[in-house]
């Protein structure tokens, strides 16, 4: 399974969730192959995807939240694993053992585990992944989706 296939599978499993993608190829491939208004693409802030997802989930307890990290990102944000497990938050780490965005340098092995971490081995290599949209557009579309989701929840309650 490559990164794009893993992302498509995760998105298909959580059709109603807010999904936070970590920066680099994880965000770029997601924007290319699995774009949807409930996706938040991080362009920077390496190691922060999980914290962002946890903050979002704590702020919006009715919302299902998914975080998709790479292994290099997970390693940089490892202290954030202390938040886990978080009810209603699904945390995936796509592991290919490389910093592929910057030229496939090796990543130190993730020799730790925590409850609530779903590790997904993927093949190294990337499909065509153009740059994702500009940050303002990413945020505005995601927030508009969050607001629509909130009003739908109110409507159904």
């Amino acid at each position, binding site marked *: 399974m490559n990164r794009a296939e893993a992302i498509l599978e995760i998105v298909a499993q959580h059709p109603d969730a807010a999904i936070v993608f970590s920066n680099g190829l994880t965000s770029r491939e997601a924007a290319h192959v699995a774009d949807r208004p409930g996706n938040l693409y991080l362009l920077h802030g390496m190691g922060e995807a999980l*914290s962002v997802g946890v903050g979002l989930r704590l702020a919006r307890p009715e919302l299902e939240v998914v975080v998709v990290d790479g292994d290099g990102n997970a390693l940089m944000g490892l202290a*954030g694993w202390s938040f886990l497990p978080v009810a209603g938050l699904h945390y995936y780490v796509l592991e290919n053992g490389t910093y592929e965005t910057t030229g496939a340098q090796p990543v130190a092995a993730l020799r730790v585990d925590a409850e609530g971490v779903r590790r997904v081995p993927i093949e190294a290599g990337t499909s065509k992944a153009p740059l994702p949209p500009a940050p303002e557009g990413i945020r505005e579309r995601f927030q508009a989706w969050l607001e629509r989701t909130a009003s739908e929840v109110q409507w159904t309650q």
Partner: protein
Amino acid sequence: MSVRAMRTDRLGRELNPLVCEARTLASALSEECDWFTGVPDSVLCKVVPLVEPYAAAPSENHALGLAFGARLGGKRPCLLIQNSGLGLLGDALLGLCHLYGVGVLLVVAWRGELAWEEPQHLRWGAITPELLRVYGVETFDLETEGLDAVRKAAREAFEDGRTACVLVRRGNVDE
């Protein structure tokens, strides 16, 4: 000539003037913010237990990551940290808040400003206002502006989408 009586702590060391009690600062923050996170600090040690909900973070960058996510989710987040965490804060500040135009309120304790403070705080104390300026974070001084500093910083953060800071000097609130 005006003479300001020197305020001291119980060890006789000089302190900055008291602006308000910790519970008054906590109330002012709670009027502007509805969600709190941070990393502990002794200057703010009496404020933190009085604000809620409070999510403890393992580092300042992750505190800001949490606050960024909470702000997207519609909260008005406040981060309570000490200035020695400004280094760790920088990556999430530039890579999340500034990049996406999302503002949160920072409350930063200015350790290492007074000459008697411990050596590990002195360099951070010396660069704190300049570092915040370089970071592009407008700073409001609790000592000179009083609780207006909280209101001004909150307006900048939540109405203008620019992360802003309230600087708290040692002695400005009771510890």
